[in-house]
């Protein structure tokens, strides 16, 4: 079937424009911001959890409207005239089998995109499906050692300064453990580690890591619903995971539930550094995120459509029973151009090691480490 629009429509075109169209099944669509090709496009999963492809903004808009309505309504975007852009998009969706003639109610489409009301927080069935589909697919395509899932750099040396002491074996949790890199580091310091992940393939890799003298216990679960009792942990970490989950606040609330009073919380997240923030202000340059990131943190809201204000995250921790002990920025001035680099560099020289933990610089690192403690 091809939907046609002509100046003097033929009977066939009129018939096609009156055909009611709907989505072939339930879809989950993630809005990605990858310039130059896929800025504002939608990575799309079908109802079986398989990725089918990427839709342009126009195609996503047509798919959103395909609720069993006549084709002409999908093409006019509320007006009377057929929009040729939407017509092209509709025909490609029909060819790809994502939209088809349909009477009655169409299956749902869930859009994971920045939202005026809730920012980058996603809840509900669409968010649940997305997390399950995406990580099941990703976990089957990319394995341990892939730079797309295991880019640790030298972060262990930074994070390990926050780890519990070797002298006192602790009960720890590595939320979103991936291949178990940090869970292994904790276990090898003598701790018992619950390694949680939603991906079974990732957990199998984590469970195979050498853990002596400690132990690693894999737990397959969603990070906002971890099957462990309240207050059972001395230490909980979540390293470069909050940018991937549907609802980061649900995850941090779950970690705080599991920590005992006085227990340590360690969160590491990507962030927009000084250069990114200035570039967005001065040149309207949009920082690039990995396509699979649902957010990055930053001091200034709206630096990017997926920007989650770091101060909101800190406020949320405080409201849910944690004291924020330190916020550390890493690679704060990376790639900053002159004369800004010299100006900020002199501030860094004056403050010395305090620079990386002094607001606002601490919230403007390319990576941000939040060290908290659950209140008694």
């Amino acid at each position, binding site marked *: 079937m091809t939907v046609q629009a002509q100046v003097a429509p033929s009977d066939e075109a009129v018939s096609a424009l009156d055909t009611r169209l709907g989505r072939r099944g339930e879809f989950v669509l993630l809005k990605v911001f*990858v310039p*130059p*090709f*896929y800025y504002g496009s939608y*990575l799309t999963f079908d109802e079986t959890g*398989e*990725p*089918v*492809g*990427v*839709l*342009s903004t*126009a*195609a996503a808009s047509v798919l959103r409207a395909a609720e069993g309505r006549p084709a002409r309504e999908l093409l006019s975007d509320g007006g009377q005239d057929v929009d040729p852009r939407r017509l*092209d*998009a509709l025909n*490609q*969706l029909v*060819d*790809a089998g*994502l939209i088809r003639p349909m009477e009655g109610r169409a299956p749902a489409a869930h859009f994971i995109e920045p939202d005026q009301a809730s920012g980058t927080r996603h809840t509900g069935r669409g968010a649940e499906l997305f997390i399950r589909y995406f990580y099941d*697919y990703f976990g*089957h*395509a*990319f*394995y*341990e*050692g*892939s*730079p*797309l*899932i*295991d880019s640790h750099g030298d972060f262990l040396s930074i994070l390990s300064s926050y780890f519990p002491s070797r002298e006192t074996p602790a009960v720890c949790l590595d939320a979103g453990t991936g291949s178990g890199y940090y869970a292994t580091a904790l276990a090898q310091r003598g701790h018992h580690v619950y390694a949680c992940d939603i991906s079974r393939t990732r957990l199998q890799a984590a469970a195979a890591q050498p853990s002596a003298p400690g132990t690693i216990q894999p737990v397959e679960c969603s990070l906002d619903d971890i099957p462990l009792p309240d207050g059972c942990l001395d230490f909980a970490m979540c390293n470069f995971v909050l940018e991937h989950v549907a609802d980061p606040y649900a995850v941090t609330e779950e970690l705080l539930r599991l920590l005992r009073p006085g227990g340590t919380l360690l969160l590491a997240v990507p962030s927009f550094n000084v250069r990114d923030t200035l570039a967005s202000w001065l040149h309207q340059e949009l920082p690039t995120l990995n*396509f699979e990131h649902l957010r990055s943190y930053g001091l200034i809201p709206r630096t990017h459509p997926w920007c989650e204000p770091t101060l909101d995250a800190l406020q949320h921790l405080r409201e849910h029973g944690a004291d924020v002990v330190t916020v550390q920025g890493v690679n704060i001035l990376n790639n900053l151009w002159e004369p800004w680099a010299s100006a900020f560099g002199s501030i860094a020289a004056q403050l010395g090691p305090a620079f990386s933990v002094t607001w606002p610089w601490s919230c403007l690192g390319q990576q941000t480490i939040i060290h908290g403690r659950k209140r008694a």
Partner: protein
Amino acid sequence: MNAGQRRDFEPIDVFWADYVRTLRQAAPPPAEPRALAAELDTLFGGLTTHELSRVDGLPITATCRGCRNNGPNRRESVCRTHVGSVCGTLEALLGVPVEASHEPGAADGCRIQVAVRGTAAGWPMVAWARRAPHVTPQATLQGFVVVDHARGSQTLVNEATWRILQEATEPHPAAHYARILGLAREAVARILDECHRLGWVHTSFAPLSDTPPGQPARASGEG
């Protein structure tokens, strides 16, 4: 796989080709088959191991062995992600859009056959390497030296590297250097990779002919 203007619906393999090519354009992949295969192995972690027939001419055949996805529960989306990423990597290397056919195999692995997009039967493409203008090879009492005027450095090199750089005042394919210098083609490809990494040669891909890239090319039958 890229064809200029984006369509409103791009299948998942096209997305991965574009994404990986964009990532790799900043750091072009190596042009030596074993080094490139090792990079592809790393990109997917432990998914599979790659073997490449060649990368200095098309069609290229990539054979994947021991793939974790090649079993009774094979997921087509994983294969398409893999094939798209291989295409994106090769596009970053070759500088031309490519397309691939994928043949899932059993015991002897899967085969991905890559050809230049829009040409019949795989237009032969080869790497043409030319010495960078800021580089001078010199024979000194200490040995063979490459002077990098941009870095202000002098580097001792082996004779083969020196001879290739001496000869590379005009762009030539690896086969040319191998033939006139009497060196193994694989060894020449490895040296050119290293020189490319150090910025000592500029590499471009074009049809194999007796005309350098940038000028009208006449296809020849040389392999």
